[in-house]
Every structure is written in structure tokens, then in C-alpha cells.
């Protein structure tokens, strides 16, 4: 009981198909009350359908949606205490900003004064006070976004669903809104389910992330857990930028060492679920690759390309035929030139091991 009641939201084996497409395939996850929860995955992976199912706009073919421990799968939309910000903002184009914000309150049949007060509060909070008489299509993208947000917040929902809310904004605004959304979450403490295909948004905002593939959750955890212990190559490839370096390997006889082009690499621990001689894939984060210090046994390599990103530089190097990327502080990268010979140090403990056949992590 106590376990169930802590969850603001719980999806149990939700499946949903449209005419020829399987949108959700036994999707399950639960969200603790007050969490900033991110549904992360590329487009058309089922994120929007998942949100619409939670909102009640989509009736699942099977499975159960629980809100505050109650099954609402077949319940009407009203009364769920859920509101949603759409990717397209979905403002009412024929109504002024004031009326857009007031709409949910009018539907709740609140008094005129109460509505005016709440609209004023919300508009002040979102810096929209000077725009109340305008029609949505005369506003900038950022303002439209804030109206959409205000319209969802004004009802004081228990659960706020955000469907790629920043996709239609420009880069600078996106950055500001990320901070703004985090601030609103801290201020109101409601449960947020945030769908995004953007890794940076997921990692910077999510307290918990569910990585989705083909309508189901592949891995669910904190950003750190996903980064440190990806369950398979899909998650490893999606989380972390630049992407993980991938090296093909053959499992050694002791199931602990792996033969690679870069030499023998010893895994963190003995791996049982792999046969000796079986193909495996080793992965190492670009941030875990560094240049060898004097006296260390490094792997000889050549600098191939430099991508300065401001404070850090992504350096591509070639070592014994394998191309690896590493992240180097800008100061250290200044001395590097393409074609320069160097030596890199690989910390064996940092390697992730995946089975080549299905991509599952076996470390």
C-alpha cells in the first residue's frame, strides 16, 4: 500500500496499436510523486502516445494507467488532474492570451474574480502581463510557449505532461526555458513527465530518465545510472555526448581479458555470461580516454581531427586502425595538430562490455 501510494503515476503493460503501427508495446514505468521524469527516445518511438494515454486522450488496447494508486485506464479525461503542454503549443488561436489562460478555469466554473486573480498571478509569474490582450499568433515563439505552460499550470495540476515543449524554440530560448522549467518544478513540486528526443534536455533536467525504444522502456534510472551502467548498446549510444567509443573484441579463455586491436583489455570483473572465443563489443566513454603520462604504458596513436567546442575539444585519434574520440580541455588541445603522433592511456576499469549478438551489457 505504502509502495503504491508513493507513486503519482504508474503505467502497467500498456499496449496501443494504430491501423498498421504498434505505438506502445507493453510499456511500463512508474513515477514517484514530485519527480521530474523524462521519457527519452528518438521521434516516433511512442513518447507522445504514452503521454496522451496518461492524459486520457488515447484509450490503451490493454494495460493499466494508475494515478495516485487508482486505475484510470477507462476513466474520462476530466478529473485526472493531468494537464499537458503540446509540442505545437496548441493555443486557442481565436482567443486572447487572457482567455487562453482563463479557459481551464472557466471550464471549472470558477467565479469571475477568482479567474482574473489567477490569470494575473500566472501571467506575472511567466512574464506575460503585458501580452494579455494579444492573440497568440502575434506573440513570439517563446511567449507562445509560456502561454501554453501557463494554461497548463493555472489549473494547478498534480501531473504535468510536457511533449517536446522546447523543440519549436530557437537554441538560446531553449537554454533559458530549461532553467525556467526546472525552476517551476521546484516552485510547485508537481510531478512532471517530460518527453524529449534531446539527450541534453534529458540529462540536464531529468531526475529520472526512461529510455524508450519501439514503444517500450529499455532502461529506467537516474542520469548517472544510465551514464555509468547502460544496459545495452542502444542506451550507451543514446546517452552521453560525444558517443561512446566502440571497439570489437574477442573474449579470452579466462573470460576476463578481451583481444582487441588495441591489445589485451582486462574487464572490471570476470564475465560469466559469455563463452571464450565469442565476439564482444567494448565501449569506452570519450571522457574516459586520456593522453598517457610520462612513464605510463600508452597506446601509440595519431591525432586525426579536432572539434573545438569552447571549453573542451573533441579529439579524434587513430590507434592501430581503431578510431577513438576523446574529450580534452581546451588548454590541452591548443598544442595538438592533426597528424601529430601521441600516446593514449586506456583505463581498463572504464570499459563497458556488450555481447556482440544482442548488444546487451554483460559487465
Amino acid at each position, binding site marked *: 500500500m505504502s509502495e503504491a501510494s508513493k507513486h503519482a503515476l504508474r503505467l502497467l503493460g500498456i499496449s496501443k496499436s494504430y491501423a498498421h503501427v504498434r505505438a506502445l508495446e507493453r510499456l511500463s514505468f512508474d513515477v514517484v510523486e514530485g519527480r521530474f521524469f523524462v521519457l527519452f527516445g528518438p521521434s516516433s518511438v511512442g513518447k507522445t502516445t504514452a503521454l*496522451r494515454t496518461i*492524459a*486520457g*486522450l488515447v484509450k490503451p488496447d490493454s494495460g493499466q494507467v494508475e494515478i495516485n494508486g487508482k486505475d484510470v485506464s477507462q476513466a474520462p*479525461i*476530466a478529473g485526472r488532474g*493531468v*494537464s*499537458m503542454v*503540446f*509540442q*505545437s503549443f*496548441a*493555443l*486557442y*488561436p*481565436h*482567443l486572447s492570451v487572457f482567455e487562453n489562460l482563463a*479557459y*481551464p478555469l472557466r*471550464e*471549472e466554473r470558477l467565479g469571475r474574480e477568482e479567474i482574473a486573480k489567477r490569470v494575473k498571478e500566472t501571467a506575472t509569474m511567466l512574464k506575460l502581463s503585458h501580452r494579455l490582450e494579444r492573440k497568440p499568433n502575434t506573440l513570439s515563439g517563446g511567449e507562445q510557449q509560456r502561454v501554453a505552460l501557463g*494554461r497548463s499550470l493555472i*489549473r494547478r495540476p498534480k501531473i504535468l505532461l510536457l511533449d517536446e515543449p522546447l523543440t519549436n524554440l530557437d537554441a538560446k530560448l531553449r537554454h533559458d526555458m530549461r532553467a525556467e522549467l526546472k525552476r517551476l518544478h521546484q516552485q510547485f513540486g508537481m510531478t512532471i513527465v517530460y518527453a524529449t528526443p534531446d539527450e541534453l534536455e534529458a540529462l540536464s533536467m531529468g531526475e529520472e530518465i526512461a529510455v524508450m525504444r519501439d514503444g517500450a522502456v529499455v532502461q529506467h534510472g537516474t542520469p548517472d545510472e544510465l551514464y555509468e551502467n547502460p544496459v545495452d548498446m542502444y542506451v550507451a549510444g543514446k546517452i552521453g555526448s560525444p558517443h561512446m567509443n566502440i571497439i570489437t573484441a574477442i573474449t579470452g579463455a579466462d573470460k576476463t581479458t578481451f583481444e582487441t586491436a588495441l591489445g589485451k583489455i582486462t574487464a572490471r570483473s570476470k564475465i560469466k555470461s559469455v563463452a571464450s572465443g565469442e565476439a564482444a563489443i567494448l565501449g569506452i566513454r570519450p571522457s574516459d580516454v586520456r593522453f598517457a603520462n610520462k612513464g605510463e604504458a600508452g597506446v601509440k596513436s595519431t591525432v586525426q581531427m579536432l572539434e573545438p567546442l569552447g571549453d573542451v575539444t573533441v579529439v579524434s585519434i587513430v590507434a592501430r586502425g581503431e578510431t577513438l574520440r576523446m574529450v580534452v580541455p581546451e588548454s590541452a588541445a591548443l598544442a595538438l595538430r592533426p597528424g601529430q603522433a601521441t600516446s593514449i592511456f586506456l583505463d581498463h576499469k572504464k570499459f563497458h562490455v556488450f555481447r556482440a549478438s544482442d548488444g546487451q551489457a554483460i559487465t
Partner: protein
Amino acid sequence: MSETASMWEKLGFRKASGVSEAGWGQTLFAGLISLIYFLPVLLIIITSFKLQTEALAIPPKFIPTHLFGLIPDAYVFTPTLENYTSVFSRSMTAGAAAENTGFDRYFFNSIVIASVSVFLALIIGTLAAFGFSRYPLKGNDTYLFVILTTRMLPAIVVIIPVILMFRITGLSGSYLGIIMLYTAFNLPFTIWMMKSFFDELSLDVEDAARLDGSSDVKVFFKICLPQVIAGLAATFVFGLILTWNEFLFALLLTGVDTRTVPVGMSQAVAGGGIGVLWGLLAAIETLFLIPVFFVTFFLQDHLLRGVTFGTVKR
């Protein structure tokens, strides 16, 4: 408004943003082309103020004033309102007392029949269009196609079964009959037009309203309908013009009491055996033009938006 506001903008004409103003030459050229389009209507209006002899004069008398002696006498006519008074009441045979021509009734009939049937078609058609757009049936497109087939044949082909139906049901000559017919006649167009407007609307907006607590009925009235006002206006005007000018069905299916202006007009042309009374005919036509002219004028802002709906990227 910026300080570079042109004379037109000061007069309240709005200019599309990012469009540079046309030069005087272009404006003049456009005016000339418009005049060519407007010429037949202008001729009718001028003729309505002429006596029969002036209406038939060659060379034509085209202006009611000498313009301070600039225009020679041969081109000038003396305007008269006689045609307008005789639209409603005149002597049918030479020397007889003036009698009612029935045109007051015809105008009343035209206004009632056209507006009621176009309104009915708009109400039924809009609901049907919303249904076709949001709650598609199996074979939705087939239904829409079938609805349109009723307008694929010329009216003259359809008229015979319609007359038979009207005779059997006793609807001939009644208001109910002609209103029902015109409503049915307007429906395909209304449904297709309104469906295209509803199809353009964002479904997310409707879902947002559902999440905000609106029922499907409220979503229709408070969210969808207000967004297609321009479309409603455009559909209304086109339907009104079609119905207002309809002649064939009205000729065959209205009685003396329910006769519309186009039918009355055709009889006035032939009337009296003294040739066509051009001045009188022009006066009827001018009066006939006024209601549609005003409706269109007042709705023209919506009309333009309605017609260009969806062609502009949102």
C-alpha cells in the same frame, strides 16, 4: 502605425506586411481592368435611370450630366426614377390605372427563400462536415463523393424527377418545397467547403480543450466553430449568390405566391407586347443586386480569408 503610413492606410485600408505599395501606374492599370469587369453592371445601373427612348438611343447616352458643357448633348440623358416606381406598381395596358406588379412579394420571397435555405444548409452542412472530418465513417470518401454527384449533372437533367416528386407530395408552389430543395441544393457545396476548413484545424488544439475540461460538444462550439468563422462567411456568401440567382427550379416549382425575383424578372421582360422595357428591367436588376452586394461587402474581409484559408503557411 509607422510614420510612413500611406494615404490608403490613413483611410483605414490595411496593407499586408512586407508588401511594397503599388505605383500610380500599376494602380491605374488595375483600375482599368476592374472597370472592364464592372462595365456590364455599370451599364445596367445607368440604364435603370433612363427612359425607354434614351435606353435605346444610338449613340448611347452614358452620362447624366454635361460636366459644365464638356460632354455633347447626344451623350447626356436626364436621370429619372420612373423605372423604379414602376417596378412595384404600373399600368399594365396603355391608359389603364396603375396596379401592383407583385414585385414586392417576389422580393420578399427571394429574401426569405434564399436566406432560410442557405442558413439551413449552413447549419446542417457544418454539422455534417464536422462529422465527416472528425468522426470518419468506413468509406468516408465514398460518402463525400456520392454527396457531390448530385451536383455533377446540370439542373435541367434533374428537374423532371424533382417535378414528379413535388407533384406527388404536393410540395409544388409551397415555401416548404422550394426551401427544402434549395437547402439540398446547397448542402454538397457547404459540406465540402466546411469539411476542408475543419480539416485544416489543429487537432492538438481540440485535445488541449478536452484536457482543459471541455466536452466534445463544447469543443465544437467554443473551439472549432470560432476558428472557421471566415469559412462560414465565405460558404454563406457563395451559397447565397447561387441560390439568389437560381432560375430554373424557381420557374418550375414556385407558384404565384412563392415566385422569386428571377422568375418575375423573366416575365417582366416579355410583358405587355410592347418590346423589352430595358429601363424597367435594369431597375429590377439593380434592386436585385443590392442585397447580395451588401452582404458580400460586409463579409468581404472574412470572404478573402475564407477563400485563401490553408494556402498560407501557419
